[in-house]
């Protein structure tokens, strides 16, 4: 049977294409020398194959860049997202709340702190400038004597204030665009005036264009291909079209993003008002870099689904992620799940911290949720239950393959724990699987032959004024049950760190007794004395722990338990986090049987 010489058009690789062309043309009688590398025909085939390969790759790239899932270039991802009515979030300036004490001056009953007032600050080796972006006015009574101090609460934003000026030319088109020439602009700080009149930003999440008429002073903002932004004005139908000669002023902050988070001290630099002092400060927060490509890919379809209204739990998650940048993970659930219908709960885990401050929760409720919320629903922000996973790994290495030192292997394993915290666990419902982490450790170096990893769980509770913030909590996993654990030599299944009770110098701790009770014990010079044999309960099957009856001094208490399975499940409102400070790794020569017998164990804390 004659071989099939029809051309194959699915090949992308140069060599495959070339072979295919040769196979196809060899059946022709005009020429024969296709297969000889030196022949002129082979040269011609090379050019044809190169051309085909080039076009195939171009087509492949082109098609990939047409879809949100497969696009790689930011400009294309942004463009596709725009078709979904989604404008990627700009960088966000870190925001701090300051309370100013402002003495009354003679001759005036009010004082206006103008937009653009500077507050300088420093954090470590870095210094930052924070500005007000709106005017604040304080009013004094007529009868107040000069020097009377009143307080004023203001928001300041980190960045460098920039003003750009554009003059509208004769040749200006409909929807004329003007480019803001800086990267890392926080577009939420943008103030645009045309001939001194302030224009309003129209974005998808404000009112859209429903209320925009031909006389509306509005502008739009689009991201450019160079990570800068365009201002876009109307066409005389949708928004007012600026006339030739009009002066456009755009003032905005170019921000350092997250670098300025956590700043606590500020110094006012207000011209002519050296008497203004700061009486209270809320640490700066909320600074973030520009939305990444992956974030846009995740957020744009979700946001499109929400249609800028929060109806389902997923809608809330999408809106929160877009509008509050300092979120590592968010979980929204309806109140009906926890017996509180009419409410929707949000559990938010901020980046690099365990929970939000009360001020941040208030700001999110007031500034974000109420704008999108259905009127009959009350949003409520809660803290996630952070379950810390303590990882203890014994690394066996082959000294013959070791190109570095065992200490370096240990350091790399510890660094891996840190990395996995954000890439592997650290989100709601992200479980911890011990085989996965062992595999990651083995992949760290060719000399590592095995990694035996055991896990313990830790939950921190805080005591304040003799009250625990979480008198009952759950490890969310079945615990390793040992009868009469409290009397066993290896210790209990669940044990707390040591703490002091009010009015005592000695230290106490909790431990379970193996029969479902949490004991309160005093530890004096290593000797354990039971104070209350039933100071709480523990359910080994569910991991639930409830503490009652004790009087702790203020501070944190950690409860550490070891689970039945080394795979840890995350459920409900809990987030798993590898506790790098508590975790450890030990590298042992695979031939050192004495050390292996001592340390390479699979149970125990």
């Amino acid at each position, binding site marked *: 049977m004659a071989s099939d010489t029809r051309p194959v058009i699915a090949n992308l690789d140069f060599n495959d294409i070339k072979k295919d062309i040769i196979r196809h043309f060899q059946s022709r009688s005009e*020429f024969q020398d296709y297969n000889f590398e030196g022949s002129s025909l082979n040269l011609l085939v090379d050019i044809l194959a190169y051309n085909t390969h080039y076009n195939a790759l171009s087509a492949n790239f082109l098609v990939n860049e047409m879809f949100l899932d497969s696009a790689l270039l930011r400009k294309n991802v942004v463009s596709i997202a725009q078709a979904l009515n989604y404008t990627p979030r700009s960088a966000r300036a870190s925001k701090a709340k300051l309370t100013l004490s402002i003495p009354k001056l003679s001759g005036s009953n009010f004082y206006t702190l103008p937009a653009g007032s500077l507050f300088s600050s420093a954090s470590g080796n870095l210094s930052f400038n924070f500005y007000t972006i709106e005017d604040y006015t304080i009013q004094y009574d007529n009868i107040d004597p000069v020097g009377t101090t009143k307080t004023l609460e203001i928001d300041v934003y980190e960045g460098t204030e920039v003003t750009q000026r554009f003059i509208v030319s004769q040749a200006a088109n409909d929807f004329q665009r003007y480019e803001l020439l800086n990267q890392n602009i926080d577009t939420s700080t943008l103030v645009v005036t045309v001939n001194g009149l302030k224009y309003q930003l129209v974005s998808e999440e404000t009112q859209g264009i429903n209320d925009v008429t031909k006389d509306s002073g509005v502008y739009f903002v689009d991201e450019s291909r160079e990570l800068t932004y365009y201002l876009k004005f109307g066409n005389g139908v949708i928004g007012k079209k600026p006339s030739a000669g009009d002066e456009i002023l755009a003032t905005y902050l170019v921000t350092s993003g997250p670098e300025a988070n956590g700043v606590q001290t500020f110094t006012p630099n207000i011209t002519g008002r050296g008497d203004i002092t700061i009486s209270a400060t809320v640490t700066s927060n909320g600074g973030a870099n520009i939305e990444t490509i992956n974030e846009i890919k995740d957020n744009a379809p979700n946001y499109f689904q929400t249609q800028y209204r929060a109806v389902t739990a997923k809608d809330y998650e999408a809106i929160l992620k877009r509008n509050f940048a300092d979120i590592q993970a968010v979980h929204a659930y309806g109140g009906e799940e926890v017996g509180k219908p009419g409410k929707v709960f949000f559990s938010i885990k901020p980046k690099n911290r365990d929970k939000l401050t009360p001020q941040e929760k208030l700001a999110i409720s007031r500034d974000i949720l109420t704008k999108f919320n259905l009127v009959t629903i009350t949003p409520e922000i809660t803290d996630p239950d952070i379950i810390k996973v303590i990882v203890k790994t014994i690394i066996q290495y082959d000294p013959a393959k070791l190109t570095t030192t065992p200490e370096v292997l240990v350091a790399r394993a510890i660094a891996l724990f840190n990395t996995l915290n954000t890439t592997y666990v650290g989100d709601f419902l992200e479980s911890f699987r011990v085989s996965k982490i062992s595999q990651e450790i083995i992949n760290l170096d060719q000399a590592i032959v095995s990694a035996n990893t055991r896990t313990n769980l830790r939950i921190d509770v805080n005591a304040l004024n003799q009250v625990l913030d979480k008198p009952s909590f759950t490890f969310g996993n079945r615990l390793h049950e040992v009868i009469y654990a409290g009397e066993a030599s290896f210790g209990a299944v669940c044990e707390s760190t040591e703490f002091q009770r009010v009015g005592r110098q000695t230290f106490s701790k909790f431990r379970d007794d193996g029969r479902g009770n949490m004991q309160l014990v005093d530890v004096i010079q290593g000797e354990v004395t039971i104070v209350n044999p039933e100071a709480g309960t523990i359910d080994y099957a569910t991991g639930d722990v409830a503490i009652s009856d004790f009087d702790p001094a203020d501070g944190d208490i950690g409860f550490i338990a070891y689970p039945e399975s080394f795979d840890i499940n995350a459920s409900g409102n809990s987030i798993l986090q590898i506790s790098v400070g508590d975790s450890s790794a030990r590298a042992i020569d695979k031939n050192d049987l004495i050390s292996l017998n001592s340390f390479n164990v699979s149970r125990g804390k």
Partner: protein
Amino acid sequence: MAVQPNFQRKNVYKDFDLSLTRNPLTNDIGTKTDAAAINQSVKNIILTNFYERPFQPNFGSNISGLLFEPADAITIADMRQVIYTCLANYEPRVQVKAVVIRDLIEQNSYHIEIQYDLKDVEKEDSTSLVLERLR
């Protein structure tokens, strides 16, 4: 049984002429057959530098790189070796018998004659070319 006359034998190798000349009778592109096709191929291989062909960086002889070396016996030996190697690699139809290189020092060039056996057509043949620094 009648013996087939030689002229009825079909060409074993058939390539087009890289100089892209026109056949005056058919107005089609000129062709090279058998020994002429192989000779052209030999020249092509020797005159191709590395990285000239797409995706085949090692194809060719890269002999032009040697033209800027000192014109002495060592360079000539190198050129000979290069020619042997590239033809062994890329032209299976010939068995190189000798490579004669003459240094035309007045013309700043080398005259190269490659003598070889054409394996399939059982014939000896040779190709000559002159390599100059400017070509």
